[in-house]
């Protein structure tokens, strides 16, 4: 189950406050680039746009990135 785009984990991923385990090159590049974009432009509008990009990736490929998603979500239980 992919958390909705409004879930706080996506913003935490974009801002670097939630780790994404190293994965396949496409996801790794996306994570690095959205974080760099956020550093360049840390506005609320930019964050919304970058969160949407991260969510779109997992919405499309969630089945194939289940392990990564579980790792991302796992931190909730330790928070």
């Amino acid at each position, binding site marked *: 189950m992919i958390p909705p785009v409004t879930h706080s984990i996506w913003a935490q991923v974009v801002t670097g406050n939630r780790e*994404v*385990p*190293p*994965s*396949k*090159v*496409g*996801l*790794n*590049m*996306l*994570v*690095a*680039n959205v974080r*760099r*974009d956020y*550093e*360049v432009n840390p506005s609320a509008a930019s964050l919304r746009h970058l969160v949407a990009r991260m969510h*779109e*990736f997992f919405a*499309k490929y969630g*089945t*194939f990135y289940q392990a990564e998603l579980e790792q991302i979500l796992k931190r909730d239980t330790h928070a």
Partner: protein
Amino acid sequence: MLSSVAEVQDQLAAGKSLLLAGEESLLRQLPRGSWIGGTIPYFMDKSGGVHSESHIFVTELPAYASVVDVREYTTATLPSICQDAPENGFSVLIMPAGSPVHIAYAQDFPTYRGAYLKPVVGWISGVNVAEIGKRQPMVFAGVSGQDSAQNAVVMHVALPPQKRAEIDIVNVFQPGPGDTITFAVSGFSAGECRINEKPANLARYITGSHVDSRLPLTANYNGSIVNVSVQSIDEKAGLVKFYAPVFARVEYRFASPVADYIAAFNSALPAGGPPATFSCNCILNYLYAGLEGKRTGNLTGPITFGEIAHQLLNQTLVRLLIRDAA
């Protein structure tokens, strides 16, 4: 595999969809058909690295893959490449070295709509290194019979629901233990930078520190190491040119030396998995590591002036894998 012009003509006549790499004069002899190609005379063949101006390297797409579109892209249309791609499949992109599309894609791909969502794999076409500056790298679109030294050519390929395309990179280089370098501005060249957070000039740093500029700058993208190779250093002008852009706010380090490229490559190549549907390796690896006659595992394909695994890379082997989705 390397094939004669006649053999490629036969494959096209049989209705195969092909990705081609070879000398311009050879590609010009091919009929219209379901193919795209780019110029380059260096290859990884079954027997090892080879320089051939008499044969074309052929990558045949699997029968279950459907070519849905072959088109040329300009700098104006290239940002829609991912939107034009099929929902499940991949896109193969070839761009001439030094062309406007090469520059634009390298710098702007991360901002394209749908970037990283749909696999884009490919390479930068080139020429015999002895003829750089004398001849122009070209790309060809077999469907239309058009060629270009300015525009990109793309084959969009759809896969059935039970198949999934995945891009993988094999990079023998790892960030070295040296200084951290950052840039205020993205681009294919740089002078002023910060080294360990202090203002510095990269050209003078490289020459003054005796850095081996055959080693790429490396950046860690959430665990994937992305290389940027040095093209030239002008110490007097204080300017370094690169084969791919450096990006602002990314931390770079020069890679550690690699004593034995083949051993390092075999160590870096993941075991198992499906055979690569397409792969390519970098001309700088071919030249610096002396790959002529040497094999890089079972991987074959063109030796290129830049590799595309979503974004433009240098000194990296790129593989397109097609896995069962189940």
